[in-house]
C-alpha cells in the first residue's frame, strides 16, 4: 500500500493534526518562536558576556600577553619585511615582483602548490576515510606515520625522495629537476593537513544519518556525495588551504629534488634565496611580500567560506 492517496486529503489531515490548532505541542512551538532568527538559542550570546565579567582581570592580562607575543614573533618582522620590500618605493617593488624570473618563480610556485593542494584534498580524504572507517592490520602504525612529514626535517624529506626518485633511482623513476619532483616533494610534506583535519570530523559523524539516507533509497555513492561530503567539506577545505599555504613557502624539501631551474622548477623560495646570494635584498623582500599576500589571501578566503557554511547550519537565511 502507499500513502499517496491519503495525502490528497491533507487539508483535512492538517486541520486534525496540526500541532498548533490541535494544541498538542504548543509549548514547544512557541519555544522555537515565530521569530525566524532563532530566539530559542540564547545560550550563544549569554555565554561569552558572563565569562567576561567573571574573569575580566585574567582576560585583559591574557590579551596583553598574546598581543605582545604576536607582535614580537609575527607582526613586527612582517612589518619590517614590508618596509624593506618598499625600500625603493612602489615602483621598485613592482619592478622586482614583475621581473620575468620572479614572475615565473611565483607562477611555478602557485601552480604546483595548487596542484598539490588538490591532490591532497582527494588523497587526504581517502586516507582519513580508510583510517576511520576500515580496519586492517597495521592500522595504528599507518595512523602514526601520517605525522612523520611534520616531524622530519624537510631537507631530510628531500634526500629521502632523491634517493628513490633521483638520478640513481633504484626503480628507474627519475623525477629529479622536474615539476613532478616538486609535486612529490610538496605532497610529502603537506600530507598530514587534510588527513588530520578530516579525521576527527569523520569520527564524530553520525552514522545514523547515513543509514537514514540509505533507508530513503540513496546508493552509497549518492550518500557520500550528498550527505557525507557536505559534512566533510569545511574540514577538507581548511586542510587543503593549509596545505596550499604551506606548499607555497616550502624550501627544504624542494631544494634538492627540484633542481632550481629558472622558469621550470625554480620556486619562489629558491628565487628569494638566489636574490639574497646576488646581494639584491630588496628584490628578495618584494617577492617575499608577494608570497605573504598570497598566503594571507588564502587564509582569508578560508575564513570567509568557513564562517559562511557555519552560518548556513546555525542561523536563518
Amino acid at each position: 500500500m502507499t500513502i499517496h492517496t491519503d495525502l490528497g486529503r491533507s487539508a483535512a489531515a492538517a486541520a486534525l493534526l496540526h500541532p498548533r490548532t490541535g494544541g498538542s505541542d504548543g509549548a514547544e512551538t512557541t519555544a522555537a518562536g515565530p521569530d525566524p532568527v532563532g530566539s530559542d538559542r540564547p545560550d550563544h550570546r549569554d555565554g561569552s558576556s558572563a565569562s567576561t565579567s567573571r574573569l575580566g582581570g585574567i582576560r585583559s592580562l591574557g590579551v596583553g600577553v598574546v598581543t605582545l607575543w604576536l607582535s614580537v614573533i609575527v607582526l613586527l618582522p612582517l612589518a619590517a619585511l614590508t618596509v624593506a620590500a618598499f625600500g625603493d618605493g612602489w615602483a621598485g617593488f613592482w619592478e622586482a615582483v614583475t621581473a620575468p624570473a620572479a614572475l615565473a618563480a611565483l607562477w611555478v610556485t602557485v601552480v604546483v602548490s595548487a596542484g598539490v593542494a588538490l591532490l591532497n584534498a582527494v588523497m587526504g580524504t581517502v586516507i582519513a576515510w580508510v583510517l576511520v572507517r576500515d580496519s586492517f592490520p597495521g592500522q595504528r602504525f599507518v595512523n602514526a606515520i601520517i605525522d612523520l612529514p611534520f616531524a622530519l626535517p624537510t631537507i631530510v624529506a628531500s634526500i629521502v625522495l632523491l634517493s628513490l626518485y633521483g638520478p640513481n633511482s633504484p626503480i628507474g623513476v627519475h623525477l629529479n629537476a622536474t615539476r613532478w619532483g616538486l609535486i612529490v616533494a610538496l605532497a610529502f610534506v603537506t600530507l598530514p593537513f587534510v588527513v588530520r583535519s578530516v579525521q576527527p570530523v569523520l569520527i564524530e559523524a553520525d552514522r545514523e544519518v547515513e543509514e537514514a539516507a540509505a533507508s530513503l533509497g540513496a546508493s552509497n555513492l549518492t550518500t557520500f556525495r550528498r550527505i557525507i561530503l557536505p559534512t566533510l567539506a569545511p574540514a577538507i577545505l581548511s586542510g587543503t588551504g593549509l596545505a596550499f599555504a604551506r606548499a607555497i613557502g616550502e624550501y627544504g624539501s624542494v631544494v634538492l629534488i627540484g633542481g632550481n631551474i629558472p622558469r621550470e622548477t625554480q620556486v619562489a623560495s629558491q628565487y628569494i634565496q638566489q636574490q639574497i646570494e646576488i646581494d639584491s635584498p630588496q628584490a628578495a623582500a618584494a617577492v617575499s611580500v608577494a608570497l605573504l599576500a598570497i598566503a594571507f589571501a588564502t587564509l582569508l578566503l578560508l575564513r570567509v567560506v568557513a564562517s559562511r557554511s557555519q552560518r548556513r547550519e546555525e542561523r536563518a537565511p
Partner: protein
Amino acid sequence: MITVSNARKQYGTFTALDDVSVEIPRGSLTALLGPSGSGKSTLLRSIAGLEGLDSGVVTIAGRDVTKEPPQRRGIGFVFQHYAAFKHMTVRDNVAFGLSIRKRPKAEIARKVDDLLEIVGLEGFQHRYPAQLSGGQRQRMALARALAVDPEVLLLDEPFGALDAKVRADLRTWLRRLHDEVHVTTVLVTHDQEEALDVSDRIAVLNRGRIEQVGDPVTLYDRPANDFVMGFLGSVATLGDQLVRPHDIVLTRDRAVALAEDAKVPGSPGVIEAVVERVVRLGFEVRVELRADSGERFAAQITRRDAFDLELHTGETVFARAAHRSSVIEIDPALAI
C-alpha cells in the same frame, strides 16, 4: 504486512534474536516492547535491512527482502536522535528521497508542501534542523520517511530523546497521524505506557525472544506469563501469585474476606497482612503491607475505600484478589 520467520542474530556471545517469528498485519501500528537488550531494536533494524540476520527470513508486503539492502525494501525509518541532514533545509530534508529518485520538481514541491502541512511544519521550510526544537526535528524526520511512500514505517524509540511533555503530545499526534495515513507502522519502545497508549498491537520481547503478541487490553488483562505481567504494569505478590495492586481488595473482617474469595475461581486466597505505611497519592491510596510469610506487597485502593477502612500503621487486614482480576502464578525460574 511484515513477517519475520525464525530470525536469529548473534553478537559474539550475546544472542540478540533467538529464533524470533512475528507477523505484523497490514495497516496496524505495532509496538515492539521490551527492556534494553531484549532485541527489539535489532528486530526493527533487521526488518529495515540496517542489520543482517544470521538466519531467518523477512518479508514485506509478500516480498522476500531478506537479501535486499535497505534501499530496496520500501521502508521509512525514523531514528531516536532524528538523523537530520544538518546541511539541508527542512524542505530539502523532506524532499531528499524524492529528489534522488529524480521526480519532477513540481511533484516534489507539491508532495513536500503536503507533508509539511501534515506534520505541522509549514512555514519552517527554509529553516535548518539546528533551528528546530527536538519535537519539530522528529516531525520533520517523520515527514522525510513518509515522502517516499514506504510500505512500512519503522520507528526506533522515536520519542526517546524528548522530554516528557513533548513525548506525550507527539505520541497522541502519531496515533492520529496513523489513523489518517494507514501505513503499516512498527514502533520500538521500552516504555510500556507509550506502547499501551499508541499501538493497536504489542509484541513483548525479552532476552531475544517474543514473550507474547496481542492487543494492549489482552496483554494487560491476560498476560501470558509473569514477565509480560510485570513489564506492562506494577505487580504485587499475593501468596504464590502475581496480582495488580489495583486488583487487591482489603477487608477488616476475615469471614467476609473468605466468603467473597470463595466466589473467585483460581484466586490466590486470603492473605493476612500488617499495614506498614499508608501513602496518599492524590485520588488513590497506596497501602504498603507485610504478609505473615514476611513478603512485602502494596495494594492500590481508592480514596473512598481508604476512608471506609480507616487504616493505620500496625493494624491487620485481609487481602484478596478482586473478581476478574489478572492473576499469574509465579514461575520460579523467572525472578522479577
